[in-house]
């Protein structure tokens, strides 16, 4: 079954006709040539396809495009303000928060979404006091980012970048 949909990706409105089986990830990469979200596992386990969907971080490989007609999507490529990198992007550069870089766009979108969740006071699995303020220490950062795998193992510098991102 073919269905017309319109989504906004990184501020640009994009219309297309898609097969109902198409995921948001495949719609972006294969139909719109938006290559920032990466296909890693394609089963929601690695986080490399993470985007901000209506402001919240999700894995785009498990989202059917047809179900997200009208959605507003931000990829890592859409976070920068012109030539000015988003503070989280800049922190990954400054702290060497990657090696091969394949997981990085997903890490960065996830981090931006994660920082918003923490700002809204959302607790995590490692938060001692569920009703208290959130202190984003290293344990919190690691837990909240556990949905993003890095097979190069750049985690130590990713945490360092996130600490910096938290401060800014």
């Amino acid at each position, binding site marked *: 079954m073919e269905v017309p949909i319109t989504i906004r990706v990184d501020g640009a409105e994009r219309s297309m006709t898609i097969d109902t089986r198409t995921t948001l990830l495949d719609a972006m990469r294969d139909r719109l040539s938006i290559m920032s979200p990466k296909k890693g596992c394609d089963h929601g386990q690695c986080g490399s396809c993470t985007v901000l969907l209506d402001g919240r971080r999700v894995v785009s490989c498990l989202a059917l495009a047809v179900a997200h007609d009208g959605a507003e999507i931000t990829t890592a490529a859409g976070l920068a303000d012109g030539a000015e990198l988003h503070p989280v992007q800049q922190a990954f550069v400054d702290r060497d928060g990657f090696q091969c870089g394949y997981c990085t766009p997903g890490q960065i979108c996830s981090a931006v979404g994660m920082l918003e969740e923490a700002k809204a006071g*959302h607790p995590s699995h490692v938060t001692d006091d569920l009703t208290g303020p959130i202190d984003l220490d290293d344990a919190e950062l690691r837990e909240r980012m556990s949905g993003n795998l890095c097979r190069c193992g750049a985690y130590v510098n990713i945490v360092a970048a996130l600490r910096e991102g938290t401060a800014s």
Partner: protein
Amino acid sequence: MIPFDYRRAQDPADAVTAVAERPGAAFLAGGTNLVDHLKLGVTAPDLLVDVSRLPLDGVESLPGGGLRIGAAVRNSDLAAHPVVRERYPMLSRALLSGASGQLRNAATTAGNLLQRTRCVYFQDVTTPCNKRDPGSGCSAIGGYTRYHAILGASEHCIAVHPSDMAVAMRALDADVIVLSQDGERRVPLADLHRLPGDAPHRDTVLDHADLITAVELPALPMARRSTYRKVRDRASYAFALVSVAAALELDDGMVGDVRLALGGVAHKPWRASTAEEHLRGAPATVETFRRAADAELAAAQPQPGNEFKVRMARNTIVAVLRELAGAHGMGGEHR
């Protein structure tokens, strides 16, 4: 992936009618489990009825102190809800221990209850599985059993229910509100999930076109002092080997009341009723906790390869009860 039609439901009754009319139809909400299964070939619906935009995403306090949770409330929103954090901390902690931040942002309350087992054979269409392909056999029996049942299994299936949230809801005596073509009915969560028996392809008692619209939690003041502990192979983002949801009320050094449920051990969230009976009215000591856990697990029938889960369940029950008793300044004796 087999081609399928797609239809966006206009309202809950429309969704039920659309699925009832097509034997091959399925509801689509967050999609985190279903879309994966479409890719794996575990399921092949010919119509997806999208219920994700229905106005079922509210959380409201009920007269009498309970809480009504809309079926479409996202796992992350429910975990962070101020009332859940304060009055039902075990539920908040259970949700936060499940999946990842990205998945919790998409997964819904009803979808969480209806997610399928993560048994590796169920998800691998090249292997026999009575749950996926009734009558084909169980590959887990005699196979890889680390994540499989020790309680309530059958010769046809030893899979476990993977939800953390449902374990807390089972301990809290939640009810599920279900809409069908015959109208609305209330199903105690205790009765929603089935043991496998000779029909492991049926995870729940729900019929084809039954739509969960809400979950209701009773007012349970003792749940303010409750928690959820999950034991797993990684520190984060892994399914439970064993998990425990518990609430404990002490009365002058004795157990006044208790709620105890286990995850990762059975085809359904496992209410530890036998342990609860042993605990009520008994001194809140480690000895009591051990005896209660042993009584519950006396019925355990582990598989070769998962015998360790019996002791793990026992120790986790004791540790969680000690933690809760410790919060009362009790339960630290007989280390």
